């Protein structure tokens, strides 16, 4: 096989449904339809789909922003459309791989791409909120070099989770 079995591809208006499906079945949090609708419209979006053997199985959505204003919960973050200031930070909003396709190197490939993309935009920080119960994700991001900055209480308050707290992790690139 000449081609890599894992491939990345752009999100288009025609396959937004795939990202939505992946998030629905893997991530515990809900993203409103308006969030999906805005992905392709806003210029601060950084988004990519991952394919395994030509089946779409992972998706990542981040955005650039200026982190002088910090957000205190999930709802605010995903609905904010702030910053006309120069962005100095990339924030990962969603990062998901279908369960059956985890531990195959797909996430690494997505993250490597994101790091390159971040650098190409002259940005040197990537941050992500992680649910405090999501040990697997925390371990994974820390293995990739992310450092825990703070713990935020009630971050996922409106998501109906048993434990609404989150960590904020960051990676300098």
């Amino acid at each position, binding site marked *: 096989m000449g081609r890599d*079995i894992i491939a990345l591809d752009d999100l*288009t208006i*025609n396959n937004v*449904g795939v990202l939505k499906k*992946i998030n629905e079945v893997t991530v515990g949090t809900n993203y409103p339809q308006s969030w999906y609708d805005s992905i392709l419209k806003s210029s601060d979006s950084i988004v990519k789909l991952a394919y*395994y*053997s030509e*089946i*779409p199985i992972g998706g990542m959505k981040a955005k650039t922003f200026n982190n002088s204003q910090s957000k205190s919960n999930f709802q605010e973050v995903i609905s904010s459309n702030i910053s006309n200031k120069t962005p100095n930070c990339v924030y990962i909003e969603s990062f998901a791989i279908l369960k059956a396709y985890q531990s*195959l190197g797909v996430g690494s490939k997505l993250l490597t791409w994101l790091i390159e993309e971040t650098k190409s935009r002259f940005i040197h920080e990537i941050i992500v909120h992680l649910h405090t119960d999501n040990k697997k994700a925390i371990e994974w991001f820390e293995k990739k070099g992310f450092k825990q900055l703070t713990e935020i209480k009630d971050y996922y308050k409106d998501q109906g989770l048993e434990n609404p707290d989150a960590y904020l992790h960051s990676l300098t690139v």
Partner: protein
Amino acid sequence: MVVGKKGIPIISNKEDANFREALKLFDSKQYKKALKLIDLNLKKNSNHAESLALKGNLILNLPANGENKESDSLSYINKAIAKDSSNYLVDHLIGIYYRSKENYFEASKWLKLSLDNGSPNKAILRDLSFMQVHLRDYKSLKESRQIYLEHQPGYRANWTGLAIAQYLNNELTNSINTLSKIEDIITPHLNASDLYEHNECTLFKNKIYGELKDYSKALEVLEGDESKILDKLSYLEYRAKYLLMMDDKKSASKIYRALIKRNPDNVAYYNLLELSLDTINKPVETRVKLYEKLSNFYPKSDPPKFLPLTFIPSTNPIFETKVKEYLIPQLIKGVPALFVNVKPLYKNQSKSEIIEKVVLEFVDNELPNIQNPTVSVWTNYYLSQHYLYKKELIKAMEYINIAITHSPTLVELYIIKSRILKHENKIAEAMEVMNEGRELDLQDRFINSKATKYMLRNNCVNEAIDTISLFTKLDEGTINGCKDLHIMQVNWILIESGEAYNRLYSHYKLQLESQENDTDKEEIQELVEIYKGLSLKRFQSVLKNFEIFYADQYDFHSYCMRRGTPRDYIDLIKWEDKIHSTPVYIRALKGLTNLYFELYEEQKGTPPTDDDIQVKKINKKQKKAQVQANKKRQEFATRVESEKDDSDPFGINLINNLLSDDILTKLYELYKPLIVEGKDLLLTWESLFKIYLYQGKYVLALSAIKNFHKLLNNNGTTTTTTKHCKIISNMLIALSDTLNSDIDVNPAIKKVVEKGIISSYPDFEK
């Protein structure tokens, strides 16, 4: 183009000079100027027949300047006929008039008359021959072609034209002679640009030799012509076929091997190779060996791997080994079409059981050790289709759900799940699941069509049209692709829409019967009318498309001669001769038949009256409601328009026109082509029986029953099923009842039919 210089009589007076000038203008499409001259002529002499005939043509060709264009132009044509129908110029112009109206029957009649009345314009023959072949009047076609060739022997197309006419008249030897003659004449004078035509005509000639079944002669000619033939594939195919027919199997087998080398994916070549190697009756092992060798030669081709599975009996242990070798690599590779590929084997139940065993063993023993997660998805996908085929729906659903949980982004899975739901009769859920799959990839045309179809099956016509409209052209100012779907002749959408509207019509009709409230009743009544009309309209649009398919061949009568493609032309003619038995046409006709009979009952029940139109006094509130209803109706109309500025968006006029017409005759017209093309369809005779019965044509009705019966026996079911027996006996009862209650029937006919019933169906007791 129309009347050459030779066609113009000697100028005798001013009128004729004017006419000649006008004719020239007509030929160069300057209709307005021509009309001025003609009007001048007619002012002076209103009896000038040529001018009248030309005026009829001019009015028809000028942009509409009033609503009576059609009848206006026709009245001039008729006047011209009355004045002087023996004038060949007049005849020719009338012929041209009918040709523009695509009435080729009339047109050919007048063109013929023009020639008979001494027209020196031989180009008429060419036009005439196009019409004659269009009307399938092969005998006259040959005559026209013959005379035209004598007149213009310098063009190869005219020779080919005669050869085709002879071929269509089944004069195969004459056809060959014509082709050979021109071939000999033209060979020394060929240019590079003529070589393709030369090649096609040579092969046409050879094809006819083949049809004469004199294979050694055909082979001899073919080999002699080899240097002329550019189409090497046909050359090889013809050659191998002749050798096979002459029982020179060894030579044939060599050519089939060469053909397989050219295209190792063509199943037919493998079958023919076996035929020429005489292996079909040899032991299975021998045949398997043959295919193993071929498979080594062509490792990327499917047929040499698959074909052995079709002939190895399931009882032979090789079958399991071979089926494993075929299935497992493809499961591992993740071939989505795997089930479709092996489906032909499922006709044999014990083969299907072995396949099931092989796949389940794979799941138990090998799958757990496979790293690639997609293998399990494709395997579960396969098993789901396997159980769906076996109608074990619960198992099928289990497997597809496992696959969907595992890889919920794979579109194919939703298609199968939806199909399982359809088989469980959960049509609404099936539609939702299909749409869920569609939303994963809006670019996927296949699932878009499937989702559209399932919406239509669920009577959601508006949603369906909106969905398919992602793939249609959207003109400015249109809200969906409905018009484009008509222009693009998307028959499957039209037929499914027609059937969906028909179900909606039946639904509201039932609701109407149980409705008490008067205002609601009015509203539902309107829906009943609209859906009935829309259903009729969509069905008719399918039929219309087929009319266009037929009309479109007209251009090819000249095009194929000019391009020199007689073989394809003959195929086209043969295809056109049976288009009315195309399944989608039959489906549309079936839908129409039911509606026509319903309308016929309606017509019989209520004599047409005019006092339906009542001017009711409306108060303000009602008026407001009416305005709103009108607005809604208008909006609905823009959704369902089949053409721009559709004057009858709901098909209500279609229905009213039918009601004021002879419905049975109209319906009979639709069935007329099927008496030949659809003689093998039960629907043809069932419907014709009903039409004849209502028309009081009892002898024909009886013969329709007999044809229906004969067809059942021919279909292989030696013992007619009880359901069909009942249909036949119901037909007989209806026939004899109608016959007995018909007081106007001719006693002789009554006797003939009664006798006919007794002699054909002695068991039938009144």
